[in-house]
């Protein structure tokens, strides 16, 4: 694959949004900013019991108190429910990546081709030089990501929505068509099937076109979620293939640090993105976010906003370290009608990707891969649960990468150096525990 041009454009888009945003909406308290002056109950979010929050719109004061009292007990339930809601997509993504890595050898073949974002080769004889090169690669990659994110935030601030949309569309086009074409080709080669161009053409065309429609326009929720998962898996596979060994690990570590900084620090680009979107009362880039439930705003929102709120894209999301966000949009068809809540958690697609990269790389190391898989998988899960717990406590956008990735890295390397030889020794001495 030609790494320079095609990847370049694509990468630009992808790395752009390193961490894309989820609307920061406190889940349990009504957000005064978001409550519009016209007393429409857009932002009242209550965990669980929607009835209580029902027509709480206008009399915000009263319902507040009673809501707060129930917040505590609902916190846990809320957190648990969302862990489950996110369990399936993240697992699916990892499963797809691992299955591909194990069966299609293409993705584990080392080539000398590298992305232009990681120009320093790792084929050097000395360890020190290799380490240096991987650190340099990481620095380049992270700076590209930072620049792109800032660029995106600036665009967003100056309302260049058209540009952003065009960018996203281009990028998803590339992902949906080109990468899946490659993927399909490799799968067919692995299973030694003869496939003709017309059939492949029809398959890819259908896959891509329906994907574009589902993601950028309107489509059934499950299909959209499925496409987002597939796309994240594809991206993760590309990363696994084209990032050199050590660089990949260092990049994983660096990106979780970046994620932490960008989301939590007051001057972080992501935080600014979130705040800008809040000021404008818009859902922050529903693009690039995986939402486990549906967002539906109606009525007061302008058609553009309504469109965008149903708009879940991904590509750039690659880099978007996710925010796990409590979902809190309320559909309203009229102030009198029964108000429902769509509760859901949003996780950035970048999170999917990097989790899958972690697990995939673990799978790609030869030998006793089951140990790595199990440990990575479980670790990521623990990390995600912790993050969601923190989310329920802090009720604002949180970076989803750091905890999981840190644990994941720690356990991967310790498994590598400690557990593996231990198991080997046990097996060699026929000692079963």
């Amino acid at each position, binding site marked *: 694959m030609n790494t320079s041009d095609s990847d370049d454009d694509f990468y630009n888009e992808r790395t752009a949004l390193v961490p894309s945003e989820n609307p920061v909406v406190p889940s349990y308290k009504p957000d005064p900013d978001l409550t519009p002056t016209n007393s429409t109950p857009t932002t009242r979010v209550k965990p669980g019991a929607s009835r209580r929050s029902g027509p709480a719109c206008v009399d915000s004061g009263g319902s507040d108190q009673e809501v707060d009292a129930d917040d505590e007990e609902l916190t846990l339930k809320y957190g648990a429910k969302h862990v489950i809601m996110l369990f399936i997509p993240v697992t699916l993504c990892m499963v797809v990546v691992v299955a591909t890595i194990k069966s299609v050898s293409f993705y584990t073949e080392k080539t000398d081709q590298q992305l232009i974002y990681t120009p320093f080769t790792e084929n050097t004889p000395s360890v020190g030089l290799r380490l240096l090169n991987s650190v340099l690669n990481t620095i380049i990659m992270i700076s590209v990501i930072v620049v792109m994110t800032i660029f995106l935030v600036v665009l967003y601030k100056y309302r260049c929505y058209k540009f952003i949309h065009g960018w996203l569309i281009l990028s998803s086009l590339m992902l949906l068509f080109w990468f899946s074409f490659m993927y399909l*080709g490799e799968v*067919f*080669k692995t299973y*030694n*099937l*003869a*496939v*003709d*161009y*017309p*059939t*492949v053409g*029809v398959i890819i*065309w*259908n*896959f891509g*076109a*329906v994907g574009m*429609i*589902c993601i950028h326009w*309107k*489509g*059934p*929720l499950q*299909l*959209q979620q499925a496409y987002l998962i597939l796309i994240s898996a594809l991206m993760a596979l590309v990363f696994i293939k084209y990032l050199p060994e050590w660089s990949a690990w260092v990049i994983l570590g660096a990106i979780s640090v970046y994620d932490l900084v960008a989301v939590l620090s007051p001057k972080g680009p992501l935080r600014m993105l979130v705040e800008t979107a809040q000021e404008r009362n818009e859902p922050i880039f529903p693009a690039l976010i995986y939402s486990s439930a*549906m967002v*539906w705003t*109606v009525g007061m929102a302008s058609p553009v906003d309504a469109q965008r709120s*149903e708009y879940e894209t991904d590509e750039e999301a690659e880099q978007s370290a996710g925010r796990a966000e409590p979902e809190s949009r309320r*559909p309203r*068809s009229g102030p009198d009608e029964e108000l429902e809540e769509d509760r859901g958690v949003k996780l950035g697609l970048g999170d999917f990707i990097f989790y899958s990269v972690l697990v995939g790389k673990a799978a790609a190391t030869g030998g006793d891969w089951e140990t790595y898989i199990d440990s990575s998988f479980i670790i990521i899960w623990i990390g995600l649960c912790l993050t969601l717990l923190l989310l329920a406590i802090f009720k604002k956008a949180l970076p989803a990468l750091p905890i999981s990735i840190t644990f994941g890295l720690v356990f991967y390397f310790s498994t590598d150096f400690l557990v593996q030889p231990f198991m080997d020794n046990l097996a060699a001495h026929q000692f079963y525990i």
Partner: protein
Amino acid sequence: MNLERLPNEEKLSLCRKYYLGGFAFLPFLWLVNVVWFFQEAFLKPTYTEQLQIKTYVKRSALGLVLWVTVLTTWITIFQHFRAQWGAVGDYLSFTIPLGIP
């Protein structure tokens, strides 16, 4: 996108757009149309636009079946006769299996 929340006119319009879109060599779109609107068209109590939605769903299903037949036939023919077609077979092939058939 939850169909429940859309007003009927929009459901109809969406169904129609999916139906028309399928003509661009997109049987998958027709499949999505059928599956997604099946409940709307057949299992819900009647409403004004339902009849039209039913028509679209039926036609999408028809188009889908047609496409599936055509594709299956073509694939069978190709797989069977690929080796015998020699150069043309190779030209048409995206991937060529290794080894002796």
